[in-house]
């Protein structure tokens, strides 16, 4: 790959159709970023990670999509696997609400939480629609995938993409990845895999995701909101404040009415 150049947008294209659930990405991420991980969760399938959080910046999802009764041989139904990660949204909900400005956009167009600025208010956790961010039990601050910011600064591919044996996780300039994704989708559709679709490759979801996906089922199956539900927290400012303002006016009016009734009582008593 050519040199990693500041000023250019970089990201991941995660092709779930070739993910084999080996979790090499999880291991490489933890090893490079010195994440301790959590105690194993014994969940359905082969998932013992559970979710993305402060200690898990890559999480391989396992969704049992095998039908209870076999309809025909090789009907294409199997486990749905996806290596989930921070999406590094162009319009990032976490950045929008962060009151300390600890969450910034780097020179590689990734979304980065500055560990020495974050104070652990967890507003970003409430805002992230993908449940990507977690509060660290050791540092107290919010943590998530950094797109291996330190590696990028040293012209190195992020650890997860480097480790992925099937190239399900592809790293590169976002524009280049988008072209690759469209070509891959066309190939799959030509092969009859019509359920394949791209998620986050265009502006329909949060202005475009720098870490986007090729999915083998509907987005919600993987815990990803569809286009209609991919909305920013600030959408509720106007309605919330307007209702509060109307209530404030009614509250003051109520107080004035109560005062007036008291004055009438005092007047009648005086009279």
């Amino acid at each position, binding site marked *: 790959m050519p040199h990693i150049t500041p000023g250019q947008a970089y990201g991941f294209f995660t092709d779930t159709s070739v993910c084999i659930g080996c979790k090499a990405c999880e291991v490489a991420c933890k090893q490079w970023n010195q994440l301790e991980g959590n105690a194993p969760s014994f969940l359905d399938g082969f998932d013992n990670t559970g*979710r993305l959080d402060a200690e898990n910046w890559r999480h391989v999802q396992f969704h049992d999509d095998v039908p209870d009764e076999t309809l025909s041989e090789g009907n294409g139904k199997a486990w749905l696997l996806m290596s989930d990660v921070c999406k590094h949204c162009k319009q990032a909900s976490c950045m*929008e*609400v*962060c*009151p*300390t*400005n*600890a969450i*910034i956009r780097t020179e590689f167009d990734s979304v980065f939480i500055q560990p020495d*600025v*974050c*104070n*652990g*208010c*967890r*507003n970003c*956790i*409430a*805002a*992230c*629609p*993908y*449940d990507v961010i*977690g*509060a*660290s039990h050791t*540092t*107290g*601050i919010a943590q998530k995938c950094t797109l291996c910011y330190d590696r990028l600064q040293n012209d190195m591919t992020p650890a997860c993409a480097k480790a992925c044996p099937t190239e399900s996780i592809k790293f590169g300039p976002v524009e280049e990845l988008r072209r690759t994704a469209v070509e891959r989708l066309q190939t799959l559709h030509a092969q009859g895999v019509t359920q394949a679709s791209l998620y986050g490759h265009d502006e329909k979801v949060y202005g475009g995701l720098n870490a986007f996906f090729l999915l083998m089922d509907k987005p*919600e199956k993987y815990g*990803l*909101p569809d286009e209609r*539900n991919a*909305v920013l*927290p*600030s959408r*509720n*400012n106007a*309605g*919330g*404040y*307007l*209702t*509060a303002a*109307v*209530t*404030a006016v*009614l*509250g*003051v009016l*109520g*107080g*004035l*009415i*109560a*005062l007036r*009734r*008291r*004055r009438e*009582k005092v007047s009648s008593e005086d009279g």
Partner: protein
Amino acid sequence: MGDVQHFAGPPDWLWYILAYFFLAGLSGGSYVLATLLRLRGAPGDEPMARIGYYIAFPPMVLAPILLALDLGQPLRFWHMLWNTTPGHPGVNFKYWSPMSIGSWALIVFGAVTTVSFAASLVRDGKLRLPLVTWLDNRPFNVFGSLFGLFIAGYTGVLLSVSNQPVWSDTWALGGLFLASGLAGSAALMLLLTRFRPEARPSAGMLSVSERLYALLELALIAVFALTLIAAGTQGQVFGLPWLVLWLVVLAGLIPGLYGLATERLSPNGAAALRHSLAVPLLVLAGVLALRAAVIFSIQV
């Protein structure tokens, strides 16, 4: 149109935040009611106004402590106000982030309640500091009341400006918390008249206002429920075990609604609230239960 999809994880805003939301509602509401009483200009209302200003101050001392303790890095509380990003020092103020606005509003309202509290002490002959009575005039109280209204209500907007189920599915929370804060403040002020008998002439006003605020709160609970039904998330907040908390919320509304049904807007029915210890406490329990139901139901 299907149900709203939610995949966001909970922020673990629990007990400290519940306590802060409760205190913010009472502090803001008490300041507003105290100012309304003072604006009327009758000497008979001044003792009750001072009760309101006395109530408004302590929560604003506790609030920053509670909020700092809730942070993962409590000593970095000041990062809310000042950007410490290397190379980008400056004030942090994001008008589209209620938490950012709220941080500044807390400072302003904290200062306002401190002045009004001190001025009440001076006027009651407990403190000699003439400067604060000069500051604590009517325009100052009106200015403070605007912030009081904000502090009592913005906490609901803060929850809504997220991607959390229930919280982000409604636009009613800001108004609901404000109405509940006003009702609770009226009940608390009435409760404290037992320690200040000269404030009793104003009890009627507070009793009538508490009835009206209970009605307003009930209407906003209905709006809250309707918005959640539209989103398909009503079961999360109104199901068991949270239904028990909602029963407490409704029990807290009963004194006001019963008063409205029987006494209507007559100030004569103040005795029940003033003499009873249980009734104002029930109203306050309702204020707390409302916030607990909203905060905990989606996080626990």
